[in-house]
Every structure is written in structure tokens, then in C-alpha cells.
């Protein structure tokens, strides 16, 4: 975990510094009259402090144990989940809930979940329609209808 801790805590130190340096724009104020930037300033210091502690702890860790956390990761699978999710958000208003949900579940189930076409298509159908009926019709949550807007 040593190398990973060094990397991740360094990112957090940078983030904490950003918060600390940005806070004066919000008016830090004084102890007597704390302003809007007071808590962000303190918060940035807390982040920096504990990130630095994590960094030092990893730095002085003498064990040579190497943990490969990215070895087993199938990046293609990850992308095949994340990308449809993001596409879904951008296409939801245009295509409507049922169609976008159908394609999202279909693609993710077929390619990331490694199910057969038949299973994927039928699950995508059942889940998109039944969830629309449950949330949209029964609970009256406003789900975008998109190009299927003519369905009442």
C-alpha cells in the first residue's frame, strides 16, 4: 500500500492547499469575527495536516510489501459501465426514460455483466418498463418521456 498511499495523500495535500489558498477570497475573518472563509480555511488545514500525516506514515514505512491494486482490474469492463452511465445522463431528456434505460441496461448487462443476448434484452425490457410503471406511474415521479412523449 506504500506507493499508493504516497500518491493518494499527495493528491490530497494539493487539494487541501487549494482550499487553504482559495479561502481568503471568501473572507476568512478573525477568531473574533469568523467570516465565510473561516471554516474552509480550517478545513483545508485539516485536510493538509492529515494528508501529510498519511504521506509521512507511508514514507517511513520500511516494509517492502508491494500490493498491486490494479492487477485484477478489467479496465474495459469498468469503461463499459461508466460510459453508458454518462451517456444515459446526456441522452435521458432526448430519448426518454424507457428507451435510455433499455439501452443502458442492455449494454451494461451484455458487455460488462457477460450475459447472453436473450437474457440481456429481456431483462432490459422488464426492468425499464416495470421501473417506469413503478416510479413514473405509481409514485408519480416526473421521469422524462422524451420521444415517447405521446404515451400518457
Amino acid at each position, binding site marked *: 500500500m506504500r506507493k*499508493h*498511499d504516497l500518491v*493518494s*495523500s499527495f493528491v*490530497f495535500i494539493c487539494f*487541501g492547499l487549494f482550499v487553504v489558498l*482559495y479561502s481568503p477570497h*471568501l*473572507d476568512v475573518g*478573525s*477568531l*473574533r*469575527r*469568523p467570516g*465565510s*472563509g*473561516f*471554516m*474552509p480555511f480550517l*478545513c*483545508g488545514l*485539516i*485536510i493538509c495536516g*492529515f*494528508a501529510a*500525516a*498519511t504521506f509521512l*506514515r507511508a514514507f517511513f514505512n520500511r516494509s517492502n510489501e508491494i500490493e498491486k*491494486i490494479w492487477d*485484477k*482490474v*478489467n479496465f474495459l*469492463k*469498468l469503461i463499459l*459501465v*461508466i460510459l453508458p*452511465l*454518462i451517456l*444515459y*445522463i446526456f441522452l*435521458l*431528456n432526448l430519448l426518454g426514460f424507457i428507451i435510455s*434505460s433499455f439501452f*443502458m*441496461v442492455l449494454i*451494461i*448487462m451484455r458487455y*460488462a*455483466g457477460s*450475459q447472453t443476448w436473450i*437474457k440481456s434484452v429481456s*431483462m*432490459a425490457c422488464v*426492468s*425499464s418498463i416495470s*421501473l417506469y410503471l413503478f*416510479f413514473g406511474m405509481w409514485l408519480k*415521479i*416526473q*421521469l422524462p418521456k422524451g420521444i415517447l412523449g405521446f404515451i400518457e
Partner: protein
Amino acid sequence: MDLINNIILGFSVALEPTNLLFCFLGALIGTLVGVLPGIGPVATIALLLPITFHLRPVTAIIMLAGIYYGAMYGGSTTSILVNIPGESASVVTCIDGYQMARKGRAGPALGMSAFASFVAGTFATIILMLLAPPLAEMALKFGPPEYFSLMVLGLSLLAYLSSGPISKAMLMAGIGLFLALVGIDTITGTTRFTFDTVTLMDGIGLVPLVMGLFGIGEVLFNLEGEIKRDIYTKKALHLLPTLQDWRESKWALVRGVLIGFALGVLPGGGATIASFTAYAVERRCSKTPEKFGTGMIAGVASPEAANNAASGGAFIPLLALGIPGTATMAILMGALIIHGIQPGPMMILQNPDLFWGLLASMYVGNIVLLILNLPLIGLWVRILRIPYGILFPVILLLCLIGSYSIKNNLWDTFLMVIFGIIGYLMRKYKYEAPPLVLAFVLGTRIEESLRRSLLISDGSPLIFFQRPISAVIIIFTIFLLASTFFPALRGKRAKIEKIV
């Protein structure tokens, strides 16, 4: 006599047909998500939060609480039958429970776990009824410095009891605090860290945050390994434990309840640590410690009692002080606030029907679960057989709907996906999410109480040491954080985890 009147009031609320229905529904959904690995109570409560918007607050909270303790029941079923804990709180139940199942004694193991859960849940509810009101009365005297110290203590305890290094957990608390500051400063009206976007003006939503970290993040993480399933249900299930079983586990049960409740009340304690501790204690108390891990029924009774007692105990800081101690309680607090109720000492006085109704519904819920769990085990096993490849796209879709339906804002959904990726990375790099969520929920109150305290003291931070209650709490917190340099207690927990 007040207490009896209140209890009667509580039951009259809990037994209203609508509330009864939603209590049942909550317990059922809770058991379901407890059974399903890959989605836990925190994400589920966040997911179902929008559904409760058109319910009365008391009905909503009864259902959401049902999900929480229902999940504790469900989690043990999978631990015993499949050796996969549905929830982290039932990890230890796997050890002896699964071995019992392999020996063909799945029935008694499930029966004992359901019974232990029932006893513990009931006990916890009774103590909650007795303890919460006087505690709340005491808390009425608290001012901003006391609240500030208490919240800092809660966060530190949670970080202290988390499994990784404390600096990482406190770092996450810092990030959670920062996320809470995004949006409009309620005192001055200044916008902070919104980067001129309208979505962030309102602040980051609890639901997108929690569903991203716990829902999407978990799914992405689970994509790595195939979840292995070996279900032991070949033999007919005789659910009743034998007389010998009872004899072996009665004291384990009592000890489990007591340990669980005590640890549950502590902020940051929670059900997971309670079950680990109870198991360790049981092994130490046993005359045959070497037999633990081979299918001892005491090894099922004690952690199961502990995790249920702890989930009851965890309600105390939330209901009496308005300070949640665990991630689940944090999201329940968020739910109460969305429904226009500020949890805390005033809640018991202002909304007695909600407080007592919720407690009474926990009694009812525990009975529902006992009835529900035993005959439906066959159904749960069948649900377990659904491959994860089919399950997770639907979980993702549910998360998308949940985050969208809060405000009908697609940017919230986008934010959730971003938090999902962050949650995944946090898991990979071993940063824990609960301190982040807790700090996020408490963030605005921490800021407010700190600024108010400083105004009261005319800028002197010594105010936290000058008021007796606050001084005790803050000194204890400092001691706690300093003691991590002598990691005896934390080492012990790591050891327990290693055994598992």
C-alpha cells in the same frame, strides 16, 4: 406514568394500518438488501428516500428504520448459507454459521440467528425508550461549545474505530466537512466553491453523494471478482435449535446483547465492531475456544445478538442528541431533515408521535422480521441464485432514478456518477467512506456551532475548555487521537480481522 402513556401513544401510531404496512415493507426491503451482496442499507435508504416524500414524516422514518434493522437480519442469512456476508456486520457470523451449514445444521443456525436478533432488537428498543428521553433532557442544556465538542468527538471516535490508519479516516472526515461547505453560507449568504454553477448553489445533495459512494462505487468495485456461491440447502431445513443448542448459546446471547448495545451507543461504534468484539469475547469466555470456527452455535448467537443490539443502540445519539454515530444514522438524519424535522433533544418534545411511534414500530418490526425471516428463507436463497451480472445493471438503474427524482435535476445524477468513481477509487486506495458521510452530514452544524462559540467567547478558542461538559469531551477527544500512537486497542481489532 408518563412512560406508559408514551408507550401507548407509540403503539397507537405504529399500529395504524399505513404505518404497519410501511414498517412491514421496510423490514422486507431491508432483509432483501441484507441478502443481496453489493447493495447495503445506506445506499438503499438513500435510494428510497425520494419515495417517502409524499408520506407523513413518521411513516417515512418507520419504513427507513425498518430497512436498517431488516438488513441486519438478511445479512446473516447469506453469511450462514453462502459464506458471503450481505453486510459487514455479519462478517463474523460466516465463521461458525457457514461451518454449521456445511455440517447440515443450517436450520438451527438460521433459527438461532433470527432468535438472537429478535431478543437483541427487543432489548435495545426497551433500553432506548428508557434512556433517550432523560439524555435528551440533559442535552437541552447544551450550548454551541458542547455541541461542537460532541460532534468532533463523534467524528474522532468513528475515525478511531475504523479499520485503516486513523490519519486516513480523519482525512476523509476533512473532505466530508469540505463538501458540506459547498454552496451558500447560511450566515453571510456568500457562495462558496460553486464555480458559478447553479446546481452547486444549493450545496451537494446527500443522496447523490451517498448513492455514488455506496451504490455505484460498490458496484464498480464488485466488477473485479466473480462472487462465488456455494449454497448449502440440500438438507431439509429444521429451523428450531435443539435444547443442547440453547444451553450452549444462552449466555453467549446475553453477552452479545450487552456488548452490542454498549458499542452501538458510542458514535462510530456501530454494528460491525460490536459483532467482532462479541465474537472475540465469546471465544475468550468459552471453555473450548479451539472449537470456534468449526460450527459452534455460540459463535452465531453472540455476534448476531450484538449486531442487532448495536443497531438499536445507534439510534440513541441520533434521537437524543441529534448527532448520528454511523453512516446509516447520518442518512436517516438527512431523511428527517428533508421531512422538516430536526433530530435532537427538542424532537422528543415537539414530535412525540414520531419518536414514540418509531420506537414502537421497532418492536413491531422485530416481530415482523421473526415471522418473515424463517418461512421466507427459501425465497431469499432463490434470490441469491440470481447472477450478479443481471443484478448490478438494475442496481445502477435504480441509483440513477433515485438521484434524479430528488430534484428532477440531471446534474445531481451526474454528480452521483462522479462520486461513484471517487467511491471506487477510495475503495481501491483503502480510504473509508463512513467518516466522510458523517462529517458531510454534520458539516454545517459543526461550522455553525464553532462560529457561534467563538462569537460567545469573543474570539477565544479556550471556551471549549472553560465549560465543564465541553472540556471533558474535548480532552477525551484529544486523548483519543493522541492514543493512536499507542495502538493497543486498534491492534486488537486488526488481529480479530486477521482471524476472519
